[in-house]
């Protein structure tokens, strides 16, 4: 026969379990666990998954809850202290109370998270990184680099939208001295999980062009100081330490320097201060140049003043010496002039006398010569008169002779001509038709013209015969032409 066994309802069972938890687990405990996921909901509550791993394997797992009000307080406190957000994957120290719910089973209610535990963890990471760097001798490596006297071309690692970046660039661009810089942005994420990797990528890119840049600048700011533990990351810090260019940081971090800030070539609290560092470099150089310029100007002026004074003194000496000399020579010249005058006068007197004598002599000679010429002229005059008279007489004789000859000739010629003329007259009289007419000759005209070959009358024509009686008109009866006249 089956015994009577005690049966319970499920609810009775679970109530019992609940009571047991109440009895034995009514305290809160500080538990260290890895929070695999936070699972924050829109309502504000969190449903994290807590677990523990051994050798990489999950051996324990439990779900938990953080109610909204608790979470808000925890988050605020945590971030204030640790300066890191509460995120998935962190190992945290939780203040928990075990809960048992009939529906949801066993779970944990998280009342608090100890920020100092996390802080400690982060400090550990920081310490570890520092020790590793020290061991490899990298702590001061970037700081030992020589930076250009005037860093002018800068590679900037930042976020394009960062206020820190825009502050940095504005200060450089708006400086009142007219200094000019060249910048190139290499974008990266500057806080949180992905910061280290993106900054390393940016550094790798910059290294390819390291000949171009004078320094690297990492700036961020304006976004609060959460999530900066990335700057304690060993890979990142090692890369920074060994980078061939000086790296300067201004990541807007005011407390508890991160390793990056400690090992960087130089660190400024704010990007604005970092920009001022570059400006002051330029300004120093500028002032040095100004000093040198002033020195040149003043020294040169001094030298020129000295030379001028020297010149003045020398010229005074020269003037005095020259004056004296001048007076001496003037005296000499006056003396010489007097001498010349005297000698010239004497000489002049002598010459005057000589000239006078010569003039007298010349006068006498000229007078004598004139007389001579005069008598010669008179003789010539007489001769000329006689000759002329003679010539005139001869000429008139010749003319007379010619006159006689001419007269005779003319006479002869005239009588000859007279004879001719008479002869002609007689001849003309002979030929004159009227005279011929008286002798009995006549002329026959046909048509007013003499009869010729061209002017032949024929039988019946009228012809006119002119003679001593007058004109006789006849009519032709017969024409007998002599053949030889055709």
């Amino acid at each position, binding site marked *: 026969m089956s015994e009577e066994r005690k049966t319970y309802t499920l609810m009775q069972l679970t109530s019992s379990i609940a009571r047991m938890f109440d009895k034995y687990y009514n305290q809160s405990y500080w538990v260290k666990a890895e929070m695999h996921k936070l699972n924050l909901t829109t309502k504000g509550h969190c449903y994290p998954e807590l677990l523990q791993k051994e050798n990489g394997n999950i051996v324990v797992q439990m779900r938990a809850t953080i109610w909204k009000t608790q979470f808000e307080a925890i988050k605020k406190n945590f971030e204030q202290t640790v300066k890191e957000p509460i995120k998935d994957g962190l190992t945290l120290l939780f203040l928990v109370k075990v809960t048992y719910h009939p529906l949801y089973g066993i779970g944990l209610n998280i009342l608090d998270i100890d920020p100092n535990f996390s802080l400690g963890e982060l400090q550990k990471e920081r310490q570890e990184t520092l020790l590793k760097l020290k061991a490899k001798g990298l702590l001061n490596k970037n700081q030992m*680099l*020589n930076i*250009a*006297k*005037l860093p*002018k*071309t800068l590679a900037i690692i930042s976020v394009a939208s960062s206020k820190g970046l825009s502050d940095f660039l504005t200060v450089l661009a708006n400086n009142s*001295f*007219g*200094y*000019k810089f*060249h910048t*190139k942005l290499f974008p990266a994420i500057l806080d949180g999980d992905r910061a280290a990797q993106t900054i390393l990528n940016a550094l790798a890119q910059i290294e390819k*062009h390291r*000949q*171009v840049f*004078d320094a690297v600048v990492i700036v961020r700011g304006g976004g609060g100081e959460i999530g900066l533990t990335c700057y304690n990351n060993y890979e990142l810090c090692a890369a920074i330490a060994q980078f*061939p*260019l000086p790296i300067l940081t201004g990541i807007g971090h005011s407390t508890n320097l991160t390793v990056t800030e400690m090992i960087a070539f130089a660190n400024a609290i704010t990007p604005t201060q970092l920009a001022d560092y570059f400006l002051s470099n*330029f300004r120093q*150089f*500028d002032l*040095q*140049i100004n000093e*040198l*310029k002033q*020195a*040149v100007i003043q*020294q*040169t002026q001094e*030298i*020129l003043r000295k*030379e001028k004074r020297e010149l003045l003194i020398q010229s005074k000496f020269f003037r005095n010496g020259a004056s004296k000399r001048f007076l001496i020579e003037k005296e000499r010249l006056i003396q010489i002039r007097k001498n010349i005058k005297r000698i010239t006068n004497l000489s002049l007197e002598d010459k005057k006398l000589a000239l006078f004598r010569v003039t007298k002599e010349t006068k006498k000679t000229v007078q004598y010569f004139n007389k001579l010429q005069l008598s010669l002229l008179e003789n010539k005059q007489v001769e000329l008169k006689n000759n002329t008279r003679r010539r005139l007489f001869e000429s008139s004789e010749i003319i007379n002779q010619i006159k006689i000859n001419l007269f005779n000739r003319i006479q002869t010629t005239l009588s000859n001509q007279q004879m001719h003329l008479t002869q002609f007259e007689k001849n003309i009289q002979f030929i004159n038709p009227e005279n011929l007419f008286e002798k009995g000759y006549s002329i026959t005209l046909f048509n007013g013209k003499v009869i010729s070959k061209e002017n032949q009358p024929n039988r019946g024509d009228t012809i006119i015969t002119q003679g001593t009686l007058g004109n006789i008109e006849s009519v032709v009866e017969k024409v007998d032409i002599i053949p030889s006249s055709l």
Partner: protein
Amino acid sequence: MEKQALDGGINYLEAFDELQQIVQDIEEGTIGVDELSVKVKRASELIRICKSKLTDTEKDIETILKEMEEE
């Protein structure tokens, strides 16, 4: 690290050193009046080079940075 002047001319560091040397020479008084004018002219040029490093936008650097953009 200091870069050579990209155009092969004197760079600002060399200019600065030469300028300091000239100032020293003038202060020591080893320069005659004739040489002085040459040195002062040279100093003026060196000052110009140094100042221009501060206030010039270097065209070649701009070009290189622009080229980087296209990588």
